[in-house]
């Protein structure tokens, strides 16, 4: 078993990883920038090391400073959380070269999946369905136009090295593609350091459904059910649930099997997520991308399986079996009840524009089936340097109805004063007939908030 770990992240995810580390007897070391010195995760760690000024490039993206902190504190392992350096194969290699255990998949698997074009090609060869799209980077506007003619409009334009919805754009015609291509390319260079662009057929009435996989130390790959992440603004998730109310038992079974194939194709170890787009009308799905890390929305899977995914990450990294009895292959995992996650962002609930600020009041809801993974507390300042996630309000119920009822009460009870928050958006979401009925797709937020 690992005896110590440095968590190379901040906010709610650092706090969540530290919680499991401490519960399982692993010494936890936090790292922080000057902007985060007062956050709860810094205090809750056994030890904390300042790694730099607020700018991410000089702190949470500064691999040398993080590895120095690991050496200085004598830890055995590094857990990257999500975002920042979590899917940076070079960082994973540096961690391993420093004699530390990397709590994540093999750097080669990160690299193969980090390039979305390579990942698509690999998945296609492994027998996983992919949308019509680029097999190599689209070099310029002329190539993009030719590619779109081949694939057929509408198309989605995105950065091959990208994530988090940044720079993604939909084009319905040639004029739209010209502008979407330029936007995607400037964002790709700026945010991801690579100008490579990928074009795919855009699915209009799509649900975004992903499968949680777990590659065990003995080489088996398990699928721990799916999460429906179709509630999105700016191509970024706002609310998630499991099981997905929009897929049939047969489709779920095919998706879980495909996710296991995807994991096996890269000899995946640890927690990973296979994201798919589901055409709800046709009852079909295509591979979108694979995230080679713990996902923001992993708690909903934990709530319906009773499995602590971070604990499994630690065990697998140490070469040990999981803490639960894996189901006999190919028996599907049976979820217990229904779970929702509402992402509480520091943004206004109408236009979703960022609203950082100092938190003067913070009161979390308490009750049956509730779990709050929060990065902040009263007195903290939410700064503009990082993403706007304040907390994840997670709700478990015996069934979807009960989970929704509990969520409606919890959203009203959650009190945050100071920064702007999207709590009122969540109240509207939970009141909407589409969400209540489970009958929604990725266009739901734009229907609730027409521009």
């Amino acid at each position: 078993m690992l005896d110590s770990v440095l968590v190379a992240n901040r906010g709610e995810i650092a706090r969540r990883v530290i919680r499991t580390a401490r519960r399982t007897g692993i010494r936890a070391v936090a790292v922080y920038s000057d902007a985060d010195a007062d956050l709860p995760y810094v205090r809750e760690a056994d030890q904390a090391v300042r790694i730099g000024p607020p700018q991410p490039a000089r702190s949470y993206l500064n691999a040398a400073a993080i590895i120095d902190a690991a050496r200085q504190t004598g830890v055995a392992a590094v857990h990257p959380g999500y975002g920042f350096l979590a899917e940076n194969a070079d960082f994973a290699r540096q961690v391993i070269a420093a004699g530390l255990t990397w709590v994540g998949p093999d750097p080669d698997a990160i690299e193969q999946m980090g390039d979305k074009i390579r990942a698509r090609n690999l998945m296609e060869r492994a027998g996983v369905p992919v949308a019509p799209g680029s097999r190599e980077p689209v070099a310029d506007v002329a190539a993009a136009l030719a590619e779109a003619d081949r694939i057929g409009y509408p198309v989605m334009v995105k950065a091959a090295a990208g994530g988090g919805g940044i720079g993604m754009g939909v084009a319905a015609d040639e004029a739209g593609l010209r502008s979407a291509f330029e936007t995607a390319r400037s964002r790709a260079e700026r945010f991801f350091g690579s100008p490579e662009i990928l074009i795919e057929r855009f699915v209009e009435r799509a649900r975004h459904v992903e499968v949680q996989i777990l590659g065990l130390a003995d080489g088996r790959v398990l699928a721990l059910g799916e999460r429906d992440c179709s509630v999105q603004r700016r191509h970024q998730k706002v609310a998630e649930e499991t099981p997905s109310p929009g897929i049939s038992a047969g489709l779920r079974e095919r998706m879980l099997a495909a996710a296991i194939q995807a994991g096996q194709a890269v000899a995946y170890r640890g927690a990973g997520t296979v994201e798919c787009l589901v055409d709800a009308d046709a009852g079909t799905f295509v591979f979108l991308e694979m995230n080679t890390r713990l996902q923001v929305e992993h708690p909903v899977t934990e709530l319906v399986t009773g499995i602590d995914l971070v604990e499994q990450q630690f065990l697998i990294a140490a070469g040990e079996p999981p803490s639960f009895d894996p189901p006999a292959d190919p028996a599907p995992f049976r979820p217990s009840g229904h779970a929702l996650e509402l992402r509480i962002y520091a943004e206004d609930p109408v236009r979703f524009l960022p609203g950082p600020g100092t938190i003067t009041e913070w009161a979390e809801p308490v009750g049956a089936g509730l779990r709050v993974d929060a990065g902040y507390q009263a007195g903290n300042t939410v700064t503009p340097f990082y993403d706007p996630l304040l907390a994840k309000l997670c709700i478990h119920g015996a069934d979807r109805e009960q989970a929704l009822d509990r969520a409606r009460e919890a959203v009203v009870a959650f009190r945050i004063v100071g920064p702007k928050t999207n709590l009122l958006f969540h109240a509207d979401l939970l009141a909407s007939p589409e969400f209540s009925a489970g009958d929604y797709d990725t266009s739901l937020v734009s229907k609730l908030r027409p521009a």
Partner: protein
Amino acid sequence: MAEVRAEMVANVWKVVAAEGDHVDDGDTLVILESMKMEIPVLAEGPGVVTKMHVAEGEVIQEGDLIAVIS
């Protein structure tokens, strides 16, 4: 004369308009960045940028003056 002020705490990512430029309603003056999002700040009417108060890389507070358009 119109004063353009910041609606939120943000970093100044790009200064698009320069002092002396003629701008129209809806033209981008500067692009702010906050919480991994880019927020364009637009001119709310036609005029000349007589003063640009921010520079790229600066952190500005809610209510800070960004530019003056006359």
